[in-house]
């Protein structure tokens, strides 16, 4: 899985994010658009696009988009 494809799916799914607004080092939990619905959306996106089941606590333990992408890649096996 390319990190660029994860980033574009992340940008597409979170309401209010525009393409190019996020990079590998973005601290996604500091984004203005990040809220409880964004957590649910990230879980649903990972499931729909990458067939990976994430929990909120796993997501919230990641600091950057890179860490989140690595988590998805690792779970994908």
């Amino acid at each position, binding site marked *: 899985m390319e990190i660029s494809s994860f980033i574009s799916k992340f940008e597409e*799914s979170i309401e209010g994010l525009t393409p190019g607004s996020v990079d590998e080092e973005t601290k996604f939990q500091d984004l203005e658009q990040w809220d409880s619905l964004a957590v649910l959306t990230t879980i649903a996106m990972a499931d729909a696009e990458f067939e990976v089941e994430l929990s*909120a606590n796993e997501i919230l333990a990641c600091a950057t988009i890179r860490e989140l992408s690595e988590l998805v890649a690792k779970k994908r096996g």
Partner: protein
Amino acid sequence: MSDFDLTGKTILVTGATSGIGLAICRAVQRMGGGVVATGRDRERLDEVGRGLTAERFRSLAADLVEPASRDAMAAELPKLDGIVHGAGALALSPSGFLSASKLRALEAINYEAPVLLTSTLVKSGTLKPGGSVVFITSIAGLFGAKGHILYSGSKGALAAAGRSLAIELASKRIRVNSLAPGMVRSGMAGEAAGKLGDEAMAAHEREYPLGFGSAEDVAGPAVFLVSDAAKWITGTTLVCDGGFTAR
């Protein structure tokens, strides 16, 4: 004998092996009533039985979303004075990630099964005239919440169907009501907690004037609705949410 007493009454409880359904089985027996418990798992039903008075307990395993399984269970039932539909499922999904399969799966257990089972038991006369039907719905069926579109839809539909059933079955003195809990610490709420994260759940609980509820907190009102103490109550929804929606 108090109108709240259930002595001599037999109550079917679906979703009896966990959470609210299990608490209702215990509460019905505490008030002197007999329980017929149903759930998918034979072993878990037996475990429920071991915690209850044997002579006022029966259990029938069934998968309520499978029509053949549901009908076979219904055919085995004794005459009933009440039905508490506790079986249900919760799935959270944002608006951009809905699918027909997710929608149908939730509707099947939260709406189709309780409505069709009630229909079967009324038609066969298994539910006696004067009986009481209680649908366990949710405050999500009354108010909006992020990610709850499919769950809200299924629970709102059930409460709406309940109101029309209440009108139709009044001629048999059968009462139909919904009981709408807020966040309860049970298996299903735990699943929601995992989805939203521990911090979000702690913040959510602070919005409940009386805090989150327990399954027992919902069992009491359910027993009230099946009892004769509620004999002039039909076609309504009793909210049971620690004051969450009073704000």
